[in-house]
């Protein structure tokens, strides 16, 4: 069989050890698939979405209720974006818990963290584009957090919001970043990330001399497995999108109106929980950035896992990184649950 374009995106053969679902969880591949779905459905949404405060909410209603299959496109976009956050975090946890962040993959680990940050920015700007009552609190609070940064706060706020309060200027900026700026950055970092996987020797496994299993699979086999994963993932996503509608509320008419539900998007609930404790800058900006910094420093400060211990979960030589990451994960999950469960009606 002559390899097609899609086969050529893969190496001719890879070690079978690199393609074990129980090892990789398929999270990275799933993230690529969800990125493609999000991009495609997002492009379709652009035919209807109007990025002005007066029209944004109405154009989403138009898409959702009046355009044939518009509801499906929007639900797919929304749910693939949410699942993408989960898949990316799973991918990150897999990399840390299997010790795959060590040399020579340190730089690609940074690229991955960069992609995660871009992804959260993508989600937040997309959340803001709804411009409805359900996101008003998060828009006001999120942008006000920027103000709390010492010295840089006001210029940053002006850069992001472009006015006294979130309005037309900010919506245009969110739109431009969402559909163009962030997309471009994700393309660059994403392609770089994929390139570095191959450059760094594929998925982390011990070097050939330290392996027992020398079996290899062909690119044909690999693509078939990917197709199967995409079919199952696609069907699951589709069924989810068919039966669980993406949230939508009445368009914002007054940004500073009283009332409304004070609720952050789910991936920032943990930050919202901390905001109740005091200083917005410390809890809302410094701690999240601090957590990111800890993740960035893991491969550079902690001893890298031994090469012989690669290709398996929880290698003993990566214990410190695992403990730190488990602690951070539990902290974030705990804070999220505290906010989501305790204060929900």
């Amino acid at each position, binding site marked *: 069989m002559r390899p097609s374009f899609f086969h050529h995106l893969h190496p001719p053969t890879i070690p079978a050890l690199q393609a074990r679902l129980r090892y990789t969880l398929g999270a990275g591949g799933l993230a690529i698939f969800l990125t493609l779905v999000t991009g495609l459905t997002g492009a379709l949404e652009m035919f209807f979405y109007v990025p002005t405060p007066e029209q944004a909410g109405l154009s989403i209603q138009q898409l959702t209720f009046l355009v044939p299959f518009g509801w499906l496109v929007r639900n797919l976009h929304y749910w693939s974006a949410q699942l993408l956050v989960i898949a990316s975090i799973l991918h990150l946890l897999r990399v840390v818990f299997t010790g795959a962040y060590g040399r020579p993959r340190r730089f690609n680990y940074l690229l991955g963290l960069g992609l995660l940050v871009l992804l959260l920015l993508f989600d937040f700007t997309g959340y803001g584009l709804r411009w409805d009552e359900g996101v008003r609190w998060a828009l006001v609070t999120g942008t006000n957090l920027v103000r709390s940064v010492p010295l840089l706060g006001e210029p940053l706020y002006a850069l992001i919001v472009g006015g006294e309060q979130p309005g037309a200027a900010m919506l245009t900026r969110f739109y431009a970043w969402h559909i163009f700026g962030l997309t471009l950055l994700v393309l660059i970092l994403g392609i770089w990330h994929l390139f570095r996987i191959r450059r760094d020797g594929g998925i982390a496994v011990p070097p050939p001399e330290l392996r027992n299993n020398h079996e290899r699979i062909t690119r044909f086999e690999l693509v078939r497995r990917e197709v199967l994963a995409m079919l*199952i993932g696609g069907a699951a996503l*589709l069924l989810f999108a068919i039966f669980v509608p993406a949230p939508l509320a009445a368009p914002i008419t007054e940004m500073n109106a009283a009332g409304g539900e004070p609720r952050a998007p789910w991936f920032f609930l943990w930050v919202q929980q901390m905001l109740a404790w005091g200083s917005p800058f410390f809890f809302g900006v410094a701690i999240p950035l601090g957590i990111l910094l800890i993740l960035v420093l893991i491969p550079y400060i902690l001893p890298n896992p031994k090469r012989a211990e690669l290709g398996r979960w929880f290698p003993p030589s990566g214990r410190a990184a695992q403990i730190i990451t488990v602690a951070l994960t539990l902290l974030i999950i705990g804070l999220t649950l505290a906010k989501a469960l305790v204060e929900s009606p």
Partner: protein
Amino acid sequence: MTLRRWIFAASLLLLLALLAAGWQESRRVQAVALTPTLTSEVEYCLSCHADLPEISPSHPIETFGCVLCHGGERLALDADLAHSTMRGGRNPSEFSVVEASCGGEQCHSGSPELNRDHIQRATTSIQSTYAGAIASIRYTFGAQSDLTPRYGVSAVQDKTVISSKAVPELLAFDSTNESSPWIQKFGENCLDCHLSAQPREGDTYARLSGCAACHTPTAGLDIAPGETQLHRLSTAINYSQCNTCHNRGNYDLRSMTFTERTDQPADRLHDYYQPIAQFVRCEWTLDCIDCHTRSEAMGDGDLYGSKKDIQYTQCRTCHGTPDELPLTYTITSLEDLALRQAFLNPVIDLKVGDTILMTEKGEPLWNIRPLEDGTYELFAKASGQRFIFRPVMSSGCLQNPEEQASSACHQCHAVER
């Protein structure tokens, strides 16, 4: 199972999911578009509400649509979202939102000269402020030294005070600030007799609130949610609508409670009115609005402290006195208020050149006109029934022309109850 077979099975699963998407699409509500001429913005409310009757001939749906009055999300075909921004829930005429729903210069908050100031008048009327009852109770229990109204159920101001009996402003009454326990109890138990109040429980005397308290006929209807008969506005208001407030039971000043009547009144003369009161025939055969005018019911824009300050129709308004015939005037313009009122409730065929009765304040009694034989014809506003009546003049009535209050007429003309 080989990988190829797995792929085949997964393809079937995906196909199934696609079929489910098509099925879900086919189940969607069929969108029914309407673009009202007043808004020029398409709305899809009729997709679900096609069975609602048109609210009134003056508000044709092709002109007004739904959203102009009700608010709501005009594009949404999801009930919760579509209804989430409706003004006043099911009743956009609630006074808290009435300006946005019914107001506007061309609608019901225009100038007094054009008789378009309905909202300004209704929200300052004593039926809305309840200022008279509040002043009287506060005076009775020593919280104020005279009967001048100081408080209403909510704060309200009147920038152009016309009558010498009116006040420029009412503060919001808060019974918890009162020291007298009686006034506190009054606040707890007796503040449900005004236009903004939700009716008491029970459907016998159920009504809506705001403008719809009077203009949406509820008497005899079940006003449970979902009742499409309630989608109606009318100026032909039956006496029973007035009775949803005005003959509903008795208050007791000793316990400061209101005891709702439990009977279902059938016979209007014997069952409805206070046993000690006297009535002449027209007071229980006609509807309230056949004699009482729009300014009496809806106020004249001033803030009063007593019903007596605004209610002025007496027997003489229609029947005149031994010395004088009732006042009349001839309609000279198409813009005349009488023609508009007759258009809204076409029980009488009025046109320019017709002569009709007029009150002493100059309000048209547009449903009454003199006949050539010296009698008068009255068309009942709610039933359309025609009545003929005579003036007092030349009738042999011996009552002193200087004492023409209705109570004097009752001395001879009250019916046996």
